[in-house]
């Protein structure tokens, strides 16, 4: 997985300027990371990476890199 591309997709998801989201960014500190963004994240990784993630696993992530790892390790559809 290309992490830089993943971070840019997170920027797009959160309507943040390109380069805002970093791997070490804490999700709790990201503006607009809320329940609607979680739903959007699920739709985004389904479309872009072909993976289906349960909300529970996403909600257990602390950082953007935790999310990246979740996507990288998920079985592809």
């Amino acid at each position: 997985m290309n992490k830089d591309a993943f971070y840019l997709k997170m920027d797009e998801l959160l309507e943040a300027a390109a380069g805002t989201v970093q791997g070490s960014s804490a999700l709790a500190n990201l503006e607009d990371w809320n329940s609607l963004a979680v739903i959007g994240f699920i739709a985004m990784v389904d479309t872009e990476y072909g993976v289906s993630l349960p909300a529970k696993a996403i909600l257990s992530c602390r950082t953007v890199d935790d999310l990246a790892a979740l996507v990288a390790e998920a079985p592809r559809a």
Partner: protein
Amino acid sequence: MTNPLQMESKTVLVTGASSGIGQSAAILLSQLGARVILTARNQERLRETLGAMEGEGHRLAPFDLGRVEEIPLWLRQLVQETGPLDGLVCSAGISSLRPLRMVDTAHAEEVMRINYHAAVALASTFCRKEVRRPESSVVLVASVAGLLGVAARSAYSGSKGALIAFARSAAVELAPAGVRINCVAPGYVKTEMHDSAMRELSPEKMEALVRATQPLGLGKPLDVAHAIAFLLSGASRWITGSVLAVDGGYTAQ
């Protein structure tokens, strides 16, 4: 004693019959005496539905309703083999849970294609004289999301609201011909589609959501199937163009 819901000697086509509400409706209709034609993409899963049904003469008719343009010819050919239909249940559908900002045209069209255009093509073909019996009934499975607003459901709501509006005008047009058309609008029901959509919510959030929205809690597919059977049966002969909310009180609040 007379059973006003009895469906003996009636033939009903049920789409989405491989799971959830469609599957439950197919089984219930067989128990009420109907001969049921089962449609969905997956033949193996249709066989599972068939295995749970009662009575004889049922038939599998696997078809991908996403091929909307092919529906008229497919249905007319099917009916040449089965004989005319007394009822049609459009239960095939897809869920969509995504923020509006992520609803692009391709996604909106996919949702409309399965949830709306396929039902329109089925109903439009069903109402032809050679396809249905003089007194017949169509039931479209809409959703409470077609009646009220739900976040991250805009594409889905649009497709279900379209079904409800379609049913009203079609009901007025088809009443003189003896064809009734109604919608059921289920709330949150425990189905695979629901489970798959709700994987996107945590179990705690799901429980809180159901409690807050539906005073009677989470529904079962059979709760909706009962309403479908009623709208197909002679017990509802004076009802057309209606939307029956089967939602545990969701829309009562």
